[in-house]
């Protein structure tokens, strides 16, 4: 393979624009041993990539999929339920508070209206009773005239 093409590929490689097939080409080129002298500096690098790729860990990380994931998922679900409850409680509390609690201004108003109502009822009651009294006076008058004109 001619070094010119490899140079182009390398430039593209460092730019990060090579395709996987082109990268394989590069790998093979540096593995083959027939490397142009001015490109030898990259040989170690590609050799390192090759060994790094083949490295494998002997440890198997412990991820118990059956337990952890559902727990996490159910936690999320319960958080959602709790949040909904909080919102619902908040709304009901707010509504209750607004409808049942009577503000001091309202209370004062009601007290004032109550006083006025009492006054009004007393007034009509007084008129009612004193008018009834007058009726009895007329009745008395009727009695006495009856006595005279018997």
């Amino acid at each position, binding site marked *: 393979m001619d070094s010119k093409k490899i140079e182009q590929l390398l430039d593209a490689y460092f730019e990060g624009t090579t395709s996987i097939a082109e990268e394989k080409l590069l790998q093979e080129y540096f593995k083959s041993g027939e490397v142009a002298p001015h490109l030898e500096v990259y040989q170690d690098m590609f050799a390192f990539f090759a060994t790094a790729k083949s490295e494998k860990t002997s440890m198997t990380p412990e991820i118990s999929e059956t337990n952890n994931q559902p727990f996490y998922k159910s936690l999320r679900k319960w958080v959602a339920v709790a949040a909904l409850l909080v919102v619902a409680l908040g709304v009901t509390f707010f509504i209750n508070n607004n409808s049942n609690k009577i503000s001091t201004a309202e209370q004062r108003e009601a007290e004032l209206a*109550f006083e006025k*109502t*009492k006054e*009004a009822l007393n007034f*009509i*009651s007084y008129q009612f*009773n004193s008018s009834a009294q*007058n009726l009895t006076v007329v009745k008395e008058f009727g009695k006495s005239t009856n006595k005279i004109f018997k």
Partner: protein
Amino acid sequence: MMKKIIAITVIALVSQTLFSQSVFDKFEEKQDVTSMIVTKSMFKLMSKIDLSSNDPKAKEYLNMVENLENIKIFTTDNPTTASEMKKTVDSYLKSSTSLSELMRVNDDGKNVKFYVKEGKDENFVNELFMFLYDELSNDKMAVIMSITGNIDLRQISKLTADLNVPGSEQLKNIEKNKNKN
């Protein structure tokens, strides 16, 4: 044809009741009229809050208030407005068929009329209407007062019975006699 007649009658009746409700409301805007209107929602509010409920007298009032729909009072000391009120009341009483006269007293120029709308029994009325007209008075020349709801006349009478008005005793007798009849 029949349908039309029915429709017209219904409309006439409805408009009459609407009219009769607002017939006195025009006085509300007059400057020389003192008015007071308390509505059902206010009565509800009153019964909700704790208004010195230890006081038995206040409790008595509250019990009455709970059954009321509304109270309307219009008072004036202006002679022109007073005579205008008199006219309105006269026409209102003429137009209203449901109100019946309870009593009418004319005492030294002070004219008081009481009208009621029949309630569930003899002691209860749905409306208590009072018109006081006094040409010689200088503060309350004319008073229109209308209470609607479920009103116990005995209770109304009792409110000031303690004030030693001689008539209240007689009134009790009148009611006893009425019950006998």
